[in-house]
């Protein structure tokens, strides 16, 4: 039985027979460890657990729903998943006789307890691979066939939903056969345009400003320092943050304005950075697909519109650099060509 946030807990719980297991539906792993899955012996216990869960907030995640299920008699717990090996550009069927707990721990401590079978996308997970895995779990007779079917079904789901992970943990042997007790999936944001399941998921773990950034189309992470950062390229932005940290300078954010940014996007990015109220803003653009003249236009516009903007240190180079630098000079805005010079300038501005 599923109870959604805002529904009448008492009314729903009263129709269920206890003891039963109460599980928080929340987008994090290791729920049992976090105390988010417990057994309720009575209706009252279940109601108070539900109240408690709906009020909890873990690392920015909320419990979205609560699932109450009858207790099963556990004879054995297995692990079973299909995972994308991105750098190997293949898939793994992963099974283990030691399910129920953190599979990462098992994998570290006793890698021999984990069975990994690889396969390609075009060949897919074959009945033979599925049989090999189920057999090595020690399944026999009808359980063996059921195990094979479950594994084949997992691959069907992975393919259909473009999931990078489809996991059942634990897959439980009960007196009446195998039951999938808990599961997890990792989906691909880039497939959102053709996957309704992703379109219907709610935004999670993002601060208000991070949500704003996502809407505007750039990568943004709020940090705790005092220097606003507008840069392009995830790697270059990271390297810039590394250099600042090593010099004892604390960035207020990570912001990669993205490839081929329009004037509007750069302007929105500056607006967002100003909202963090940094003591200085460092702009570092190395134009490839991004054009320096467009970035310059956005900076000029933003400085016109925001009279209380913090001091800006600007470094522009790459595609259409000459045009960009000329525009900024015309508007009496200084440009620094080399990055270390720009970082030093930020340090100066902060100590003023």
């Amino acid at each position: 039985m599923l109870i959604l946030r805002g529904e009448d807990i008492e009314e729903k719980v009263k129709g269920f027979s206890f003891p039963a297991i109460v599980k928080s539906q929340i987008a994090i792993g290791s729920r049992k460890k976090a105390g988010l899955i417990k057994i309720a012996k009575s209706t009252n216990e279940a109601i108070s657990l539900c109240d408690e869960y709906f009020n909890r907030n873990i690392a920015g995640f909320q419990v979205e729903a609560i699932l109450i299920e009858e207790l099963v008699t556990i004879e054995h717990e297995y692990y079973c998943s299909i995972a994308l090996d991105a750098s190997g550009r293949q898939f793994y069927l992963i099974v283990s006789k030691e399910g129920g707990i953190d599979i990462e721990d098992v994998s570290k401590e006793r890698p021999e307890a984990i069975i990994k079978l690889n396969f390609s996308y075009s060949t897919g997970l074959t009945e033979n691979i599925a049989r090999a895995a189920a057999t090595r779990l020690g399944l026999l007779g009808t359980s063996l066939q059921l195990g094979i079917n479950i594994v084949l079904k997992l691959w069907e789901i992975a393919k259909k939903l473009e999931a990078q992970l489809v996991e059942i943990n634990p897959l439980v042997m009960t007196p009446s056969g195998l039951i999938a007790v808990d599961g997890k999936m990792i989906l691909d944001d880039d497939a959102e345009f053709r996957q309704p399941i992703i379109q219907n998921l709610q935004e999670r773990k993002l601060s208000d400003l991070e949500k704003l950034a996502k809407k505007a189309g750039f990568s943004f992470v709020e940090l705790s320092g005092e220097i606003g950062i507008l840069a392009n390229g995830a790697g270059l932005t990271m390297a810039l943050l590394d250099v600042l940290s090593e010099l004892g300078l604390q960035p207020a954010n990570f912001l990669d304005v993205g490839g081929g940014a329009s004037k509007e996007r750069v302007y929105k990015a500056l607006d967002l950075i100003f909202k963090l109220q940094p003591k200085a803003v460092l702009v570092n653009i190395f134009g490839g697909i991004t054009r320096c003249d467009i970035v310059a236009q956005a900076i000029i516009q933003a400085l016109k519109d925001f009279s209380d903007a913090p001091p800006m240190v600007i470094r522009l180079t790459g595609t259409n650099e000459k045009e960009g630098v000329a525009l900024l000079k015309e508007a009496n805005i200084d440009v620094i060509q080399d990055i270390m010079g720009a970082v030093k300038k930020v340090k100066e501005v902060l100590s003023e």
Partner: protein
Amino acid sequence: MYINENSKVIVQGMTGKQGMFHTQIMLNYGTKIVAGVTPGKGGQQVHDIPVFNKMKEAIQETGADTSIIFVPARFILSAAMESLNAGINMTCIITENVPVFDMIQLVEKAKEKGLFLIGPNCPGMLIPDKIKLGIMPNNMCHYGDVAVISKSGTLSYEITKAIGNSDIGVSAYIGIGGDPVRGTTMQEAVAYYSEDPKTKIIVLIGEIGSDEEEKTAELIKYNVSKPVIAYIAGKSAPEGKRMGHAGAIISGDIGTAKGKIKALKDSGVLIANTPWEVPQVIKEIL
């Protein structure tokens, strides 16, 4: 060869804004662009270059062997698949946000046909003074003997320009892209350039996330005798946050800057502490 000065290039998506803009800049560099392909726009011309509806047609008319793709992410699977099926030797995908399952299918097709695929979400590749197949700036460096292989785009421009400014020449610049599933992996690119007679030194530009640097370290340990220098971005990144590149998520011990630097050091790779230190480290070897 991935590409050389004689490569004949098709731009897929040449009639779009980005395609048009970068076609001009590649032409300025001297790249031999012989055709554009956009379904439904056949018969048009962009910068005096003929546009065709289909890859096969464009290849028949021009003898092209290389393609660079600028079409939107949702059309990449069909565009790149068409390029591979037409037998193009090197297909380079610039577009970002390509679904992972599309990339997997493309990689399998490229392997099956023995063709090269690079990207997505990448700046492309450059043989300085000879050919530019990508969107990186034109004036970074001259031809020479250092191969630069990078997961990141802009950061690699910065480093390659610093190398160029130090009067060190570059034999090839290869941007493999920031996505988790790549047409060419870091270890494939390193293996390729360790065999390249023009290349004397390999520079690797990595970043947090995925296990490619670790796998590359293994490869270098046993199979690469040329000196390798690496810079890894993301030492100060907070755990679990997504820093722009889909590949750049740290979870647990795998994929941290610290872990990558250690693995590379253990394989004899020289580590530059900042991007701007790379030319210095190269000079110490030369």
